[in-house]
């Protein structure tokens, strides 16, 4: 058996993989938060609740309509994204002229309502969601056994994050989006329908959260609290990365997941708090965040 720093190799790699998976969720959620914040200037507190809705959508599609995992991976984000667009059109758009704090408070209230409703309907114990048969089993990588589904989650998250980054940085739609983030009235003067762009951005960010929710469904049991368990850590990730850059939130998300995984190997008691400790260090040395721009 390979030993690394006195730790058995398979244990170290196993925790690294778990860390990467958590990191994948941090990355997808903080990416959505960053995109939404850029356009709407709102911290979407309901992000965790909508992530949870993504997982529930997958579960409902399977149990009520007999629609499997892979179609749900497309359908659930579309459904929840449409719900997000509905929310933006009806409620959130009323707050753009007010202090940003009101957006935070409103979405916080929203998350309480959504989570409360799901808790009423499904209890808080959680329901299992089976790993699709195609992704069951494990692969021998030589230095460790990797459960196929976990590998798939990391891969899928990586692809989706890269795709989002490419769309925003390399396409003309992304260029318009970035321009509207910088100066919305000017972009509107060029004939771009900025309000529609904002709505689509919110829908897109929510769809990303829901996609993460579907990926999470077979790993964590589907329960109403799964979002709020994640979201507090994701806020710390956002503070560490800074809201300035898309790539920054992806890198920070994955990186912190790995840090968390490694802490579990070397000093398990601190694994729940290590992200917050990193946040404290970053705040002391670089208050704007690792990738943040000066305001």
């Amino acid at each position, binding site marked *: 058996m390979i030993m690394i720093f006195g730790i058995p190799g398979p244990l170290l790699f196993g925790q690294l993989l778990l860390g990467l998976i958590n990191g994948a969720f941090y990355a997808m959620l903080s990416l959505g938060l960053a995109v939404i914040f850029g356009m709407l200037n709102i*911290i979407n507190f309901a992000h965790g609740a909508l992530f949870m809705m993504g997982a529930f959508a997958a579960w409902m599609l399977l149990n009520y309509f007999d629609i499997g995992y892979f179609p749900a991976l497309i359908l659930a984000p579309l459904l929840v994204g449409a719900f997000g667009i509905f929310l933006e059109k009806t*409620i959130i758009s*009323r*707050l753009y002229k*007010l202090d*940003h*704090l*009101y957006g*935070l*408070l*409103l979405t*916080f*209230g*929203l*998350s*309480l*309502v*959504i*989570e*409360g*409703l799901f*808790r*009423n309907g499904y209890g808080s114990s959680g329901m299992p969601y089976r790993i699709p048969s195609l992704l069951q089993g494990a692969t021998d990588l030589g230095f460790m056994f990797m459960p196929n589904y976990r590998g798939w989650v990391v891969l899928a998250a990586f692809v989706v994050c890269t795709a989002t980054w490419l769309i925003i940085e390399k396409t003309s739609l992304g260029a318009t989006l970035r321009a509207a983030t910088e100066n919305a009235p000017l972009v509107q003067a060029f004939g771009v329908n900025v309000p529609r762009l904002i709505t689509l951005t919110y829908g897109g960010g929510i769809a990303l959260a829901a996609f993460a929710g579907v990926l999470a469904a077979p790993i964590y049991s589907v329960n109403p609290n799964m979002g709020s368990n994640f979201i*507090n*850590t994701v*806020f*710390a990730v*956002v*503070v560490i990365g800074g809201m300035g850059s898309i790539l920054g939130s992806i890198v920070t998300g994955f990186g912190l997941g790995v840090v968390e995984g490694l802490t579990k190997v070397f000093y398990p*008691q601190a694994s*729940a*708090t290590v992200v*917050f*400790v990193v*946040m*404290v260090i970053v*705040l*002391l040395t670089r*208050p704007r965040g690792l990738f943040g721009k000066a305001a």
Partner: protein
Amino acid sequence: MFGFSRPQLIAFLAMLALIIVCPFVVYPVFLMRVLCMALFACAFNLMIGYVGLLSFGHAAFFGMGGYVTAWTMKVWHLDASIAILLGGVTGGVLGLCLGYLAIRRSGIYFAMITLALAQMVYFFCLEAPFTGGEDGIQQVPRGHLFGFIDLSNDMTMYALVACVFLGGFLLIHRIIHSPFGQVLKGIRENEPRTTSLGYRTDDYKLIAFMLSTSLTGIAGGTKALVFGIATLTDVNSSTSGEIVLTTLLGGLGTVFGPVMGSVVMVSMENYLAQFGAWVTVTQGVIFMFCVLAFRRGIIGEIGNFLKLKL
């Protein structure tokens, strides 16, 4: 006196009368809960209403104050006054440490940082041996005040809680109307301009944060003493959210708003407790309603209607 305007003085006297009369009509333990939450909300309001910083982590100070008071009462058998004071000191010291980090950013970042730091405190409380983990610290004796006043009687305890609340309320009012408070309002309105007048705004913000968290610790300690229990619920981020809602509902930046807010919130929780998870849904709906259509809060709307500053 204390910088009350005439209408505020009338409102204060009315509140005082209610505090004296109510325990003979309403269940005192319920009132004590209202007063503890009211002090908590007033302390929170000092930050959001007068410095303009929204803290989403005040539960950390409330819960830790409660733990320290409960632990010192149960293990060291201290006098109740000293135990409550130690709760306040805990809140203040913790506020100094966390505030030092959090005031480096403002606006939504301040909210996110306080939320994350409070979450760290929560995980600490979950693991630390002295908090009793999931069980909390139970069966805390109420003990004696100044060595000779027995607090096991609800009415005596109520008198203490009322005094603590009034002391905190008046202190906050005095702070707001002091020159120090004027600087805080200056920071809220325009921080760069306040800096250019020669004030070290970061110091002012940190001191205000410490005052707020000290009073929050006292509120937490008093509550732990009343109910004889300190648990993880009080450190949880849901408590932070609840106090934001309480203050918003009563009226941000108003003197009596937080008190009114806690009367409504505690009554609602009492009434809705039997409906389980519907409490969260109702709170969420009220939250959204307040933000969309009722941003001044109850007292703010009344004040606006009467053209008074309450």
